[in-house]
C-alpha cells in the first residue's frame, strides 16, 4: 500500500493525504468507506486524486480524522507530515524511501 503523500494531483487537480492518514490510524479502505457512507472504490478514487469530493464528504473526512479539511486536501503539493509538524527537511534516507514507495 502506498502510504506516502500524493505526488501528483490526478484528474481532480487536488492533492490529499487520505492514504497516509488511513495507514497511520490502521484502517482499511472498506472501514473508512463504511464510516463515510460511500463505496470503498470511491476511497480509492479519492486517494489517487481521480475524484473531487463534495464539500459534505470533505468535511466528513476532516471530522473523522479530527483534522481541518485543508490538512487533508490541498491545491498545492502537500509537504510530508514530519516536515510540516517539526519543520524539518526530509533526510536523504526518508526522501529516498518516499520516492520508492
Amino acid at each position: 500500500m502506498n502510504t506516502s503523500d500524493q505526488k501528483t494531483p490526478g484528474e481532480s487537480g487536488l492533492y490529499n493525504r487520505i492514504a497516509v492518514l488511513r495507514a497511520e490510524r490502521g484502517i482499511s479502505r472498506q472501514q473508512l468507506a463504511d464510516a463515510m457512507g460511500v463505496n470503498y472504490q470511491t476511497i480509492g478514487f479519492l486517494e489517487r486524486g481521480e475524484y473531487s469530493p463534495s464539500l459534505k464528504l470533505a468535511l466528513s473526512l476532516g471530522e473523522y480524522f479530527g483534522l481541518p479539511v485543508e490538512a487533508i486536501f490541498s491545491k498545492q503539493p502537500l509537504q510530508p507530515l514530519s516536515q510540516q509538524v517539526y519543520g524539518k527537511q526530509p533526510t536523504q534516507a526518508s526522501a529516498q524511501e518516499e520516492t520508492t514507495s
Partner: protein
Amino acid sequence: MISADSTLFGHSLARRRTRRWLVAAFWGGLVPLLCVGFHELFFIARGTFSLNTLNFALLAIFWITIWLGGVRAGGWVKPFRAQTKVRNILQSLFAKPQPTQGELTAQELAMDEREINRRDHIHFVAYSIARNMTLFLFTLYCMLGFWKQELLRQTGPLIFFLLTITLWSLPQTLILWTEPDLEPEAEPVIVKEKRT
C-alpha cells in the same frame, strides 16, 4: 455501479478488458445479428410489419436488456445499480436485487456521490452521441425519401430499430467501456503494531 465480484462466464467484470470484450461482442456480434434478423423478417413480409417482425423486435429488446441491463431494467450486467448481485436471469430481469450475504442497509444499496456523478455524466455523454446520431439518421431517412423510396420502405424500420437499440444500451456501453479496473473488495485490515 459495477460490482467488483460480478462475473460473466467466469471472468471478473472488475477488469476493464473483460467489460470491453462484452461491449465488443454486443456491438460487433449481437446488434448486427439482430439487425439482419429484423431486416430479413421485414423483407419477407414484403415491407410491412407482420406479427413475426413485431415478435422479433420485442425479443431483441429483451436480449438487449439481458446483456447490458439498464438504469431500472434488469440484466446480468447492472452498471448503474449499487452492490447488485443477481442469482439468475429471471431475477435479473424482473425482481428487485437482493444482497447475497448479510443484510445491507438502504444506504449501502444506494449509489454514493461519485457513482451518481459518474452516472449523470455518462448519461450526458450518451445523450450527446444519441442526439447527433438521431440527426444523422433523420437526414438519411429524408434523403432516402427523396431519391430512393423503395430503399426507404425497406430500411426505414431498420433505422428506427437501430436507434432503439442505441438509446437503450448506449449509457451502459459507455460506463462499461470507460470505468477503470476495480480494486478487489476484500482489502486486508491493517493491524497496528503494539508497543511494549
